[in-house]
């Protein structure tokens, strides 16, 4: 056997793709799924085989490219976070009807908690709606095994198969044994069949009937059937678990000395649930507790409900992550064991904030200067944290900053004094879903300013390239698309670029844009400065970090703390003055222009 390696769940998934002979993988970054594609790309560099590995502009495009690869006979995969699947839901629903040729795996990572998402939605419900099977891994190791299983299932029934890991699988690390890569034997061979691949509504009905037949057979497929974990237990009450809740429950049952008492079954394929399993459970047990994340997908398929306990009966919470301590309480109650509830301290922690020196912070400060009474729609990314500066009023979903700006404009346009509207959106998010909304705003003469926060990367998810970078997932050189060109191509007449580190000039530019927008319609300001986290790769030529200090003129008014909230600025309330944390400070020097008393100064070395 190979030597075990410490693998992140997402690396184990990538390893599984490699071992299964997947030759095309696409994605759009999103926590907790981002590392899957990057890990697959890292494995590719070592191999000799040529695979297509790409970051797509959004999840819909990523899905369609990988799906088409499978139509052409190849093994392919697409990965994304759960809300990304919303974006890709259009092709997903249709692809389920048309089916696949080469194995096609849709990896949609859920985020119960939510830790880093706008919803806790359960991708297994999307699989159910699309009518495709879904596998639910409990650990990095099982996630890798399930990739192989998903490809087999997909090819056996010519159907897309979903793998649904959650944050605790994606971002756990475990010792995993790497296997051998399967040399890919599948030849690319697109068999024209317009009646299927371009089916008209009449034939879609037939395809739907076929799909139902497939699902019926899959619900009896042996390889994905639920597993009985403890054959020796004989109580008349049983547990059904899946995903990471299964991982927690196994440990808890042993710790509570119930392993030999309560029969426990792990569901590998929550949809379609195996029919024989359902009848066996209902026939055998007087009471059944179902523990799963996040929605009761298994539970709702247990048709005879008289003996079922779960989310629908209020026995298991329907909201939030199922932490192991919660599961312990639930299992204890189910087994009739008294477990003392643990008194957890409220965990205030430190609120998330933009990094010290983040160019977005300077841009937000300028936005508030240029339109102090404005409405500020924003978007999904690090810059959501502009909330802390009071420069973000709304965050809905990818690309919505632009269309929400339009919504506010149309709502207020008949008022005597409509408010200024300044929307912010990141560079990657602009490409993802902002472009169609901007075209709409141009056509509708929406009077607003769009600030595109162009930090030359997809920062929040780990600095993946954007379409403007001209770089691929494996570091290869590609074409780049420039943001100004896109903006002007959308029909915007006012499009200017500024560096937010030059705070005064940048604020003046924004004021000009606000003035223009009041009379004419959309104005776009591209706020361009590279992300600090990868600035060593992309720093503006000639830019040097500044050394700054707070002079005795500081009277501790806290204006910089309240309105700029840089984590490197520390207020000492008793001393009534602010100091700068030299470890946190990244030397952007913007605070020099922020202080109203002019008491923050550059330290000149040559003096």
């Amino acid at each position, binding site marked *: 056997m190979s030597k075990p390696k410490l693998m992140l769940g997402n690396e184990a998934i990538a390893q599984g793709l490699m071992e299964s002979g997947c030759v095309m993988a696409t994605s759009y970054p999103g926590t907790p799924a981002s590392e899957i594609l990057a890990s697959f790309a890292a494995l590719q560099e070592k191999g000799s085989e040529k695979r297509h590995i790409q970051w797509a502009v959004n999840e819909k495009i990523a899905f369609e490219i990988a799906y088409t690869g499978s139509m052409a006979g190849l093994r392919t995969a697409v990965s994304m976070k759960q809300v990304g699947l919303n974006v890709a839901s259009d092709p997903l629903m249709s692809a389920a009807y048309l089916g696949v040729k080469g194995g096609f795996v849709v990896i949609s990572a859920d985020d119960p908690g939510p830790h880093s998402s706008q919803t806790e939605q359960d991708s297994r419900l999307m699989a159910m709606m699309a009518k495709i099977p879904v596998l639910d891994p409990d650990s990095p190791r099982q996630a890798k095994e399930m990739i192989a299983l998903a490809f087999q299932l997909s090819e056996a029934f010519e159907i897309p198969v979903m793998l649904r890991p959650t944050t605790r*699988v994606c971002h756990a690390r475990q*010792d995993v044994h790497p296997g051998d890569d399967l040399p890919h034997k599948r030849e690319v061979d697109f068999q024209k069949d317009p009646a299927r691949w371009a089916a008209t509504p009449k034939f879609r009905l037939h395809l739907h009937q076929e799909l139902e037949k497939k699902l019926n057979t899959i619900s009896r497929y042996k390889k994905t059937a639920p597993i009985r974990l403890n054959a020796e237990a004989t109580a008349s009450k049983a547990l059904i678990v899946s995903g990471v809740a299964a*991982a927690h429950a196994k440990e808890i049952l042993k710790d509570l000395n119930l392993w030999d008492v309560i029969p426990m079954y792990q569901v590998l394929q929550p949809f379609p649930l195996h029919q024989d399993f359902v009848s066996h459970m209902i026939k055998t047990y007087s009471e059944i507790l179902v523990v799963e994340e996040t929605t009761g997908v298994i539970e709702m398929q247990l048709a005879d409900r008289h003996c079922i306990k779960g989310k629908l009966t209020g026995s298991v919470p329907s909201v939030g992550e199922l932490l*192991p301590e919660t599961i312990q309480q639930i299992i204890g109650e189910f087994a009739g064991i008294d477990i003392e509830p643990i008194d957890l301290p409220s965990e205030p922690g430190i609120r*998330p904030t933009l990094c010290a020196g983040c160019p977005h912070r300077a841009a937000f400060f300028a936005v508030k200067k240029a339109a102090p009474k404005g409405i500020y729609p924003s978007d999904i990314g690090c810059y959501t944290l502009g909330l802390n500066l009071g420069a973000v009023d709304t965050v809905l979903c990818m690309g919505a900053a632009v269309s929400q700006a339009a919504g506010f404009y149309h709502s207020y346009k008949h008022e005597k004094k409509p408010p200024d509207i300044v929307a912010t959106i990141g560079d990657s998010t602009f490409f993802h879903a902002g472009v169609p909304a901007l075209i709409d705003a141009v056509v509708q003469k929406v009077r607003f300013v769009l600030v595109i926060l162009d930090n030359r990367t997809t920062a929040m998810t780990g600095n993946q390239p954007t379409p403007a970078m001209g770089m691929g997932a494996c570091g290869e050189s590609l074409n780049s698309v420039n943001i100004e060109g896109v903006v002007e191509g959308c029909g915007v007449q006012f499009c200017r670029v500024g560096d937010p580190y030059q705070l005064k000039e940048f604020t003046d530019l924004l004021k000009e844009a606000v003035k223009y927008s009041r009379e004419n319609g959309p104005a776009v300001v591209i706020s361009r400065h590279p992300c600090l986290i990868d600035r060593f790769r992309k720093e503006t030529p000639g830019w040097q970090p500044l050394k700054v200090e707070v002079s005795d003129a500081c009277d501790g008014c806290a204006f910089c703390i309240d309105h700029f909230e840089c*984590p490197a600025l520390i207020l000492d309330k008793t001393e009534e003055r602010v100091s700068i944390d030299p*470890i*946190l400070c990244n030397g952007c020097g913007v605070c020099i222009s922020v202080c109203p008393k002019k008491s923050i100064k550059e330290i000149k070395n040559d003096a």
Partner: protein
Amino acid sequence: MSNSIKQQIVISGVGGQGVLFVTRLLAEAAIMKGLSVFTSETHGMAQRGGTVLSHLKVGNFSSPLIRPGNANGLLALKADSFARHGYFLKPGAWVAVNSREDAIVGPEFSAYTIDAEILAQRIHNPKSVNLILLGFALAAISGTLENSLFCTLEDIITVLQQRLAKKKQMLDDAVKAIETGFKSVK
């Protein structure tokens, strides 16, 4: 013996302190010793400047998370980490804290305190607080039989040598930091 080892350790700090790096070193040391391991970490929005907490479970476990009242030890990179994450510990657990003043913990725990910031400044490596604390913990905790760590200073140095094989300067700095922490225990 390795089959019977079961240790659950919580590592806590704030963004930028290198909580994940320490977690990884310990996890790789476990694998090197033929032990199974689970870690759980924070990414994305939750990672931006906020509290960073990681769980490390060495031995035969199926869940990546530590339940409250079950941890054998807490490696605290911030003085207030015990107040925040002490609830993970079981009675008799150890706490190794980076703090200027002696950490205040209940009588049911053994606390070991080190001012790692000062030592980090002394070796001109202000970002090495994480490794100094780890080195300190390896020395301080191995004194007690019940709760000794599953690995030694030598194990961690071997892992560092593998990870930083091509980065001589970083390796030297890292080894110096971890030894500084280790030797600070008298």
